[in-house]
């Protein structure tokens, strides 16, 4: 009796699902958006979703004459979860296009997964690992943002111009900081600078006392490629230990979370140089409009769009522009859309973007310095824009291949 009831219920649910399935008309394009809503990047991940929503809204919710429907997915910054969420979107929810994921290792895993579904387009979210597009790239994975190494191009020159000839480096021990360090050191070493010692610390290190004790006294400055709470902990402890050398930071080292922390060391951060694909203080109408739109649309968001909102925004914008270019035509395994995306060029909020032959972005990097605004708050003032930064960091393909991807020991110039 009970079994029959269960059976009936099952049939009813099945019929209901079928009905929903057919009601889904062909004039809607389903886009899956994967960020992090749990784990260490839950807060940036939320801002990533804001970036997606904002791009769709500014496009009036339409692209190529079709309605855009966004389905949201979440991972916890682990590649396993990222692939699981992507697989659900693609195989169960049948999205047409997939945008995501957020962090580097996730990006490599999703890129590998995209090869099992060559019929559809995968676009990166905000992940910035070099290996995603430089090692064994996938023909249907597109990245309209530049990656971790590109974000640091030009910072080496600035450090040398400030007279930092010998530097000491501390960075977290995983893929993204490897890329950042390579972006910095490739040109810094080539132009005669020396990184005398590198300290690699595990992600989430709380006690830096033994690391700080190992800073040689004869270096000119420190390179600090740490993020979030790691950066705050290091800066606090360096201050307590009486370190008075200037800093050069990575792309997520001196962001708003670090600049807003309270402490005496904060004052000494003034003038700290860093670099990234965007900066709060970009002085162009396009960027100002982007910030104004963000503030208007998300009163509960950050004071100004984070890196993740920006990266998800440009990747989503690229998809919508591509759909416009082909009038929403996804037939023949999305071949028209793939061709359109590969040759797409557009002006994002922070500079011109186009793709290279591995479908990775060539775009601008902004060199910044921490400055004090009129109201006493700290922000990153743009010192210089480096346009057209390629994934080979301005080197020829042969030279870059000789160096290889960044890791603990590459590049090296003690």
């Amino acid at each position, binding site marked *: 009796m009970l079994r029959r009831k269960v059976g009936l219920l099952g049939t009813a649910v099945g019929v209901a699902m079928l009905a929903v399935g057919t009601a889904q008309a062909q004039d809607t394009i389903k886009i899956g958006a994967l960020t992090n809503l749990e784990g260490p990047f839950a807060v940036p991940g939320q801002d990533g979703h804001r970036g997606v929503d904002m791009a769709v809204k500014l496009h009036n919710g339409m692209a190529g004459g079709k309605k855009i429907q966004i389905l949201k997915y979440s991972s916890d910054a682990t590649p396993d979860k990222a692939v699981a969420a992507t697989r*659900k979107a693609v195989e169960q929810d049948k999205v047409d296009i997939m945008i995501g994921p957020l962090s580097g290792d996730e990006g490599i895993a999703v890129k590998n997964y995209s090869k099992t579904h060559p019929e559809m387009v995968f676009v990166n979210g905000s992940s910035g690992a070099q290996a995603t597009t430089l090692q064994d790239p996938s023909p249907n994975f597109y990245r309209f943002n530049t990656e971790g190494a590109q974000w640091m191009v030009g910072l080496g020159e600035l450090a040398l111009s400030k007279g930092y000839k010998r530097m000491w480096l501390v960075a977290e021990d995983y893929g993204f900081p490897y890329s950042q360090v390579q972006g910095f050191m490739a040109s810094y070493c080539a132009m005669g600078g020396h990184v005398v010692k590198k300290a690699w610390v595990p992600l989430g290190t709380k006690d830096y006392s033994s690391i700080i004790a190992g800073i040689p006294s004869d270096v000119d400055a420190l390179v600090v490629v740490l993020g979030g709470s790691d950066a705050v902990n290091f800066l606090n402890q360096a201050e307590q230990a009486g370190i008075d050398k200037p800093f050069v930071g990575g792309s997520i080292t001196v962001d708003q979370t670090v600049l807003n922390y309270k402490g005496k060391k904060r004052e000494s951060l003034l003038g700290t140089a860093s670099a990234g694909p965007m900066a709060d203080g970009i002085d162009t109408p396009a960027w100002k409009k982007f910030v104004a739109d963000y503030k208007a649309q998300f009163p509960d968001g950050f004071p100004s769009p984070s890196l993740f909102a920006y990266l998800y925004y440009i990747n989503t914008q690229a998809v919508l522009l591509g759909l416009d270019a082909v009038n929403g035509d996804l037939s023949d395994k999305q071949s028209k859309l793939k061709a359109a995306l590969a040759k797409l060029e557009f002006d994002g909020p922070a500079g011109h973007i186009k793709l290279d032959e591995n479908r990775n972005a060539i775009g601008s990097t902004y060199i910044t310095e921490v400055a004090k605004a009129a109201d006493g708050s700290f922000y990153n003032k743009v010192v210089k824009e480096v346009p057209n930064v390629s994934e080979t960091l301005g080197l020829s393909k042969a030279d870059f291949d000789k160096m290889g991807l960044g890791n603990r020991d590459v590049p090296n110039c003690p």
Partner: protein
Amino acid sequence: MSAAEWRRAMNTGAGRRAWSRIPGGPEAGGAPPSSATVAMVAAPGIEARIGALLGHIRLRHVLVLAAVLVYPWVVNSFFAFQIGGQAMALGLIALSLTFLGGYGGMVSLAQMTVAGVASYMVAIFGVAGAAQGGASSLGWPWEIAVVIAVLVATIFATLVGWLSVRTEGIYTIMITLAIGVSFYYLAQQNYSIFGGHEGFNQVYAPTVLGINFRDPIPFYYLALFWALAGYFFVKYLLRSPFGIALQGVRENPRRMNALGFHVTAHRVFAYSVGGVLAAIGGVLMVWYNNRVSPGSASTEMMLNILIIAVMGGMKHPIGAFIGAIVFVLVQNFAIDIIARERFNLVIGGVFLLIVLFSPDGLLGLWAYFRDRFLSGGIQSKFKSAEGG
């Protein structure tokens, strides 16, 4: 220990007491075992054993087996691979905990670590993609890598057992938690062997006789095969002299010791057996994820295995798989039920409700409903007994 020794032990009070606490097969819920089960253990003839085995097959067993065999053909690849395949692999790891915890009285959090060791060994000895961290795999054929993986993980599990069997209750949990966390940090910070934070990518399931086990349906059947194998192995083992002695040890170690059983040896061997199950689950997990990193054996994953085992119910081996299926379903579909930012609330809520309202997990829930509704309820039974 031989069957004859077991029979001698049975004649003492301790043995009988142990018997009365053995969860009785699929009819679970702590029902006393039928005399047929006793006969099956004692009967020496192979024909009699097979006959007794066949006698145990009920309609529901045939239905469940048919359902799991047909399942991947009626659902899409997502359900076959991500729900079915993953649930079977996780269930196998949870089964090792059910075996240790439910029957040996030793709750080991390190079962996911054992699985993680097996995963890592498959990557280290077998074929994996180049890692940015600098570790490289040996590239040996997958058959050898898998055998080594299961062996190493089993030895590891035995060592874990050897270390922790002299502790009881919460101390066992603590010591296995400590071992698990140590392994996590070892893998996280060792670059030459374990590949650090990134671990190993592109660890693919092999292609055998033209069947690519990376594909959803072949992988599902592979996982199903090992899940069934593990399930029947555990069921068999629980009725063997060793299994019964193990349950005796769970109930009263001092008494078993007085009877001449080597309590520590039984417990350590239980860890080894659990290690084999977890190791096979670990091999399946690395092929399922195509990769392994410290996160694959993190504290969160260790707790997930505990959640699966407890949620399913530790009174019967099938609980591990029921728990795994529910866990995987909730994890995948909670995000569709509620606001995207709040979906972990659903996951936590479901687990809380199950554990709160049924201390024996989903199996306990099922036993309750069966007693309450399907067989007229316990009270009516009592009444009819009084009347007769």
